[in-house]
């Protein structure tokens, strides 16, 4: 298992290099200029100076190599320096956002907590409601509960979040007035009332994304349970006199969880992808909002860095899913 993990990690390195290059080139091809948000009244010489100052006039390969160095050496070194007071980075230039001139990672550091609290919670809530629904739907296949579960999953599947989110805003914020329409990023949770306020403002985005996630995962759970429910070993467990609870929640569930855990792990990077629409809809100032903002401003370093981080997350969680699979299924041997 350890050798497998190490081998996969080594393999990930060339993969990620290729991905980084592709991202860099693709993003660079996109039309737009970092000056597009600068007023037209600024004279061309000044614009030229500004572009030079950003380093945006350099050929793309030069910028790519610089970015690589910054991403893999300067940024980790800076982080290390920040923790231990060393001076590894030696004052080298970090990856700067063309839009705000601030280091890209500083901006990401500010945005990530917003994304994790809202979108991460939504994913967790989605998983927690999906598993019992999936299990019970399978156990009572074609029952009323199962039919309702199917309906719920169809809705979650087929209605895009920008629509269900808008609907939820209209129902719960506009009509019922239960929750605030706008997410207040600056709210600091210091006491009970502010905590409640945080919960209330999280409710709608969590509902929107949670519904979508629960729909997908509950289907996986259900079909995996159904696949296993008719297996011979289930009959053996019954023939041993095991209670229905043990048969279903131990024998069947343990087998059914293997593919579902994989699906859940593989879905985690999509937390960040899914964030893009939902964050914009509810005004959560997270990583998705940062990406959209950077795209609008042709802030290439920001877009490239974020896209690459998504790629790293996807590769990482693929690996995690494989390792989990091996841990859960004794039949899998990786070496």
């Amino acid at each position: 298992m350890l050798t497998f993990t190490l081998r996969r990690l080594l393999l990930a390195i060339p993969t990620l290099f290729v991905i980084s290059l592709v991202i860099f080139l693709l993003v660079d091809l996109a039309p737009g200029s970092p000056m597009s948000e600068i007023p037209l009244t600024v004279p061309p010489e000044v614009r030229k100076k500004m572009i030079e100052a950003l380093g945006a006039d350099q050929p793309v390969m030069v910028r790519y190599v610089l970015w690589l160095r910054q991403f893999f050496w300067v940024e980790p070194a800076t982080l290390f320096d920040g923790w231990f007071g060393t001076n590894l980075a030696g004052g080298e230039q970090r990856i700067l956002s063309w839009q705000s001139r601030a280091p890209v990672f500083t901006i990401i550091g500010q945005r990530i907590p917003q994304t994790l609290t809202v979108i991460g919670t939504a994913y967790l809530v989605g998983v927690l409601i999906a598993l019992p629904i999936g299990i019970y739907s399978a156990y009572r296949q074609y029952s009323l509960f199962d039919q309702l579960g199917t309906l719920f999953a169809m809705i979650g599947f087929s209605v895009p979040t920008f629509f269900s989110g808008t609907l939820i805003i209209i129902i719960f914020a506009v009509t019922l007035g239960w929750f605030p329409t706008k997410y207040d990023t600056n709210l600091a949770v210091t006491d009970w009332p502010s905590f409640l306020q945080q919960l209330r403002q999280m409710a709608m985005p969590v509902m929107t994304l949670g519904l979508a996630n629960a729909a997908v995962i509950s289907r996986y759970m259900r079909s995996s349970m159904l696949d296993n429910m008719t297996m011979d070993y289930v009959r053996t467990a019954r023939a041993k006199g095991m209670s229905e609870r043990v048969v279903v929640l131990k024998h069947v569930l343990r087998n059914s969880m293997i593919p579902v855990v994989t699906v859940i792990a593989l879905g985690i990077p999509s937390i960040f992808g899914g964030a893009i629409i939902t964050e914009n809809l509810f005004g959560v100032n997270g990583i998705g909002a940062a990406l959209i903002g950077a795209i609008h401003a042709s802030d290439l370093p920001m877009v490239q860095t974020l896209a690459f981080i998504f790629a790293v997350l996807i590769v990482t969680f693929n690996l995690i899913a494989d390792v989990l699979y091996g841990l859960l299924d004794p039949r899998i041997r990786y070496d």
Partner: protein
Amino acid sequence: MPDRAAPVLDVRGLKTVFRTRGGEIHAVNDVSFHLERGELLGVVGESGSGKSVTMMSLIGLLPSPPAEIRAGTVMLGEQDLLKISADQLRAVRGARVGFIFQDPMTSLNPVFNVGFQIAEPLRRHMGMTKAQAAKRAVELLELVGIPDAAKRLGDYPHQFSGGMRQRVMIAIALACDPDVLIADEPTTALDVTIQAQILELVKELRVKLGMAIIWITHDLGVIAAIADRVMVMYGGQIVEQAPVKDLFANPQHPYTRALLKTIPSLTGAREARLQVIEGQPPIMTAAPTACAFRARCGHAFDRCEVDNPKRHAIDGVALGQGHDVACHWAPVTAEAAHA
């Protein structure tokens, strides 16, 4: 036969129906039989004749829906297994009745080690602690002839060969010292040498533990080797029942006789088996009103079309105790029987 003790298992008038979208399937039709203490009862019949469904009906192993037990009593000692609650039935399964299935490759749970799977019934039915159950599990594995038993408790099913897995299944079925062991084609999925080893093991365990066994098989050769008494099933009914010697010496039912013609030698290839009988076994979409075998029977006459034959004794002994057959044409003499 004078003064026989009460049988361990006494099944009367069992009737099991599957309600499917395409209509009802009458898989078991008025089946009655009993099992003596320490006896090995062989059950033979073609695929689809209702052997498995009959045995699974006894201890509520059929999924319901679609299965529905319409009638009958299943007396295990003083208890009618068809009347008791689901909880009481669970206390019987795995404790007083052990079950071994056909396919050892899929009958064990792949994600639990065999130690756990053997310990489960011990802990549930005998209230053993983890340590006691582990100790007993080692004894059981030794009993069924698994070498290095203590070391193998932590192994998973995929680490065992097919024959070894079937031994583990036997260990599980025997864990709580059942009165009755039901083995549903336990060797069909194994190759011939392994099959012979498992048969030897069961013969030996029978003597050691003294339980009664119901052994389902396609293979009359196996029956001849281990059974005391045989029951031949066709179309969800028992068509002939006799002590094993009588059945082989004096087969009555045309189906039994056709079956006997299909056995090769006792050790020969198993492939040619039952397919030799022309035609297909029936799918019973209704309770039988005519002989289920009539379409394939060389002796069929007009009565067979309108009257489902009842079992009748041919040796003057009470029905079920000696040799009986369900056929309008029988009885025939031993010489005629082999013609």
